[in-house]
């Protein structure tokens, strides 16, 4: 199971947990798993089936290109706002 860090403003959706173990071989599958257990999660993270442009989802230290990003058994997933630089 991958570990997903839940952003503070989404924690009310999942009983206040800071991290949640979720299953799936891809990022999309992990989000499906979260949605199944904590309805409403998907639409906070995705827009029309894509990662919301204002968000960045990191899998094991790299920003995921999309929902097909591979997720391993011991993966760490973080959901954070996207950042610009100067």
């Amino acid at each position, binding site marked *: 199971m991958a570990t997903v860090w839940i952003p503070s403003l*989404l924690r009310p959706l999942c009983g206040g947990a800071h991290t949640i173990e979720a299953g799936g071989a891809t990022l999309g599958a992990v989000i499906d798993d979260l949605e199944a257990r904590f309805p409403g999660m998907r*639409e906070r993270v995705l827009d029309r089936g894509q990662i919301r442009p204002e968000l960045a989802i990191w899998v094991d230290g*790299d920003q995921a290109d999309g929902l097909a990003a591979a997720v391993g058994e011991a993966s760490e997933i973080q959901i954070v*706002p996207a950042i*610009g*630089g100067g």
Partner: protein
Amino acid sequence: MTTEHKAPYRVIGTRPLRPDGADKVTGKAQFGADIRLSGMLYGRIKRSPHAHARIKRVDVSRAAALPGVHAVVTAADLPGAEDRVAELGEGSVNMRELSGNVLAHDKVLYRGHAIAAVAAVDAHVAGQAVDLIEVEYELLPPVLDARDAMRPEAPLLDKNRRTRSMAGPADGPSNVAAHYQFISGDPEEGFAEADVVVEREFATRMVHQGYIEPHAATASWSSDGQLTVWTCTQGAFAVRDQCVAILDIPVSKIRVIPTEIGGGFGGKTIVYLEPVAALLAKRTGRPVKLQMDRSEVFEATGPTSGVNARVRMGATREGRIVAADVELIYEAGAYPGSPVMAACMTALAPYEIANTKVDGYDVVVNKPKVAAYRAPGAPAAAFAVEQVVDELAEKLDIDPLRFRLANTSREGTRGPGGRPFPRIGHEECLEAALSSPHYNTPLEGPSRGRGVATGFWFNGGMRSSVTVIVNADGSVSLVEGSTDIGGSRAALAMQLAETLGVGIDDVRPSVADTDAVGYNDVTGGSRVTFATGIAVHEAGMEVRRQMTERAAAHWHVPASDITYEDGRLTCTSDAQKSATFREMALQVLRTGEPLVATGSIVGRGVGAAFSTQIADVEVDPETGKVQILRYTVVQDVGTAIHPAYVEGQMQGGAVQGIGWALNEEYCYDDQGRMANASFLDYRMPTALDVPMIDTIIVEVPNPRHPFGVRGVGEVPIVPPLAAIANAVYRATGVRQTQLPMSPRRILETTLGLS
């Protein structure tokens, strides 16, 4: 302190002349305004004198009738842009808002907001025509302060705006465009554990990047409907894609040619003039050049946010920071998009703190829409946090650098959102500062003080492409698409020379237009030497592979028999068969297939950059003037590819920060008019205001870059505001919670003058 020669490298770490340098010292280099085309017209923009008003009527007839005027355009000439968010590589931009910022549709939201544009035979006639454009306004009350704008009764800039957050959109309309929050651990429990708690509020003003080159763009349409745009930009592809969206034309119809760029610091990442020049050029059938004057640059481009911050931090008697609570309110300007989320994520990054809460608010006000500015969001947050950290250290009677060292982030420390740091060099920076000659030289004399501060900034990855062409004489052309603001052509050419084992003089780098090289995200986020460097390395390795195959065919041996080392191909099965890269090129490229390789990458494995800085100041107790006596920048750069330009980034960032700390600010009257939109009254440091800036390059290689590169450009501007504030405190005994620490502010806070 720079290691001039590192054992594994031949080219990296040396200081060759930059390839574009000769043209820049002789005046030959072409910058944005230097474009001159046959039959070219000159454009000028009509701008709002009001900070907030509804546009009731625009009458361009008198302007259009002026002899010498060829066209006048308004927002009505722009195709309606969709209300969608376009990905431009630098965070996200709402296209309708981007279009509205280029030419106001129905409301003007800040003084300087563009309303119409004129093309004429020369700039003087265009200027006269602009004066003849009549605009009727319905004045609306301006909102100029973020805290005022957050009040429920505040006038709304956009009645359809609802606060966005991960919790979903809010119910009612608001000037608060977004709310960000990060909580880890249990902050209240953490504060309960603390023996010392410090809480303070801070405020900074809007400031500008202050690049010396004003924005300039020239557009020309061919008779078959192809648009060419010349512009000084940090990202030719970003300009292309924004023009495509705003003008509603296919990508295949537009080519953007980046000129040399006279500074950007994040401010040249979004379009202002390009789509307007394109409209005027289309209308007139002639090339049109638009360039801003300095007051337009101040009033109508994208400065960075004024900020309100509240910071509360607690530490144990032993010197361990156990809790932090930070609230950051950032002005977005006229449209959403302040860098507050980056501020939230950088504010506490230098420290490992178990219990933290950070809230950030992105608030629209009637000021120009902010753009990126060097480490966007981080300096103001560090100004607040690093003073509170300093105060904790003082209360605990611990040396401020040692206090930071005791709490430093390390590999594995989790930041906001739970992301763990990879290998970072903050600890090494602090140690280098502690053992620096500067820190170990006592500062003596009255009204003098020494301050330290530390800062963090992300590195960007994003997309880069390069093409490497091996010429028949063995020289190598490097075609890249990352516009070069501060010497990146040199840094990339050096990485290619290193990869191929050839001399730096054998590599000729050039920045290509959008039709001549693969996609490249903007030059920003400290990403080019890192990410485009990876693309260069990839292309270089492909050249090596192809060259090895050619050599194998030439020598009639299997490729597996050939080694490539230090720029020499050698056949392991026949030592007689050995040739340098150049010799082999001469053998195989005169007649065989041309040798071309590309590198196209998404920059993964970004490093993280830290800088620790030491400032000595003297404060004139009678005038309040702060003089910088000595200044040292310590920075982990991963690997310094070209140490001279790495030092240059460190020095330049520090001095830009010194300006921000001491004198720079947007001064507004209560109607939202900027009172100091000139280089005379927007007081950037001159050569006489600063000393030599000492640099200490720390090299903790980024393990995920082939040469260990970390982004260098942005982080040096993060610590100076706080370092100087801490120094002023030591000199005067008074904490400076507002910027700029101008003589007036110093007198007000030290003498109670008001």
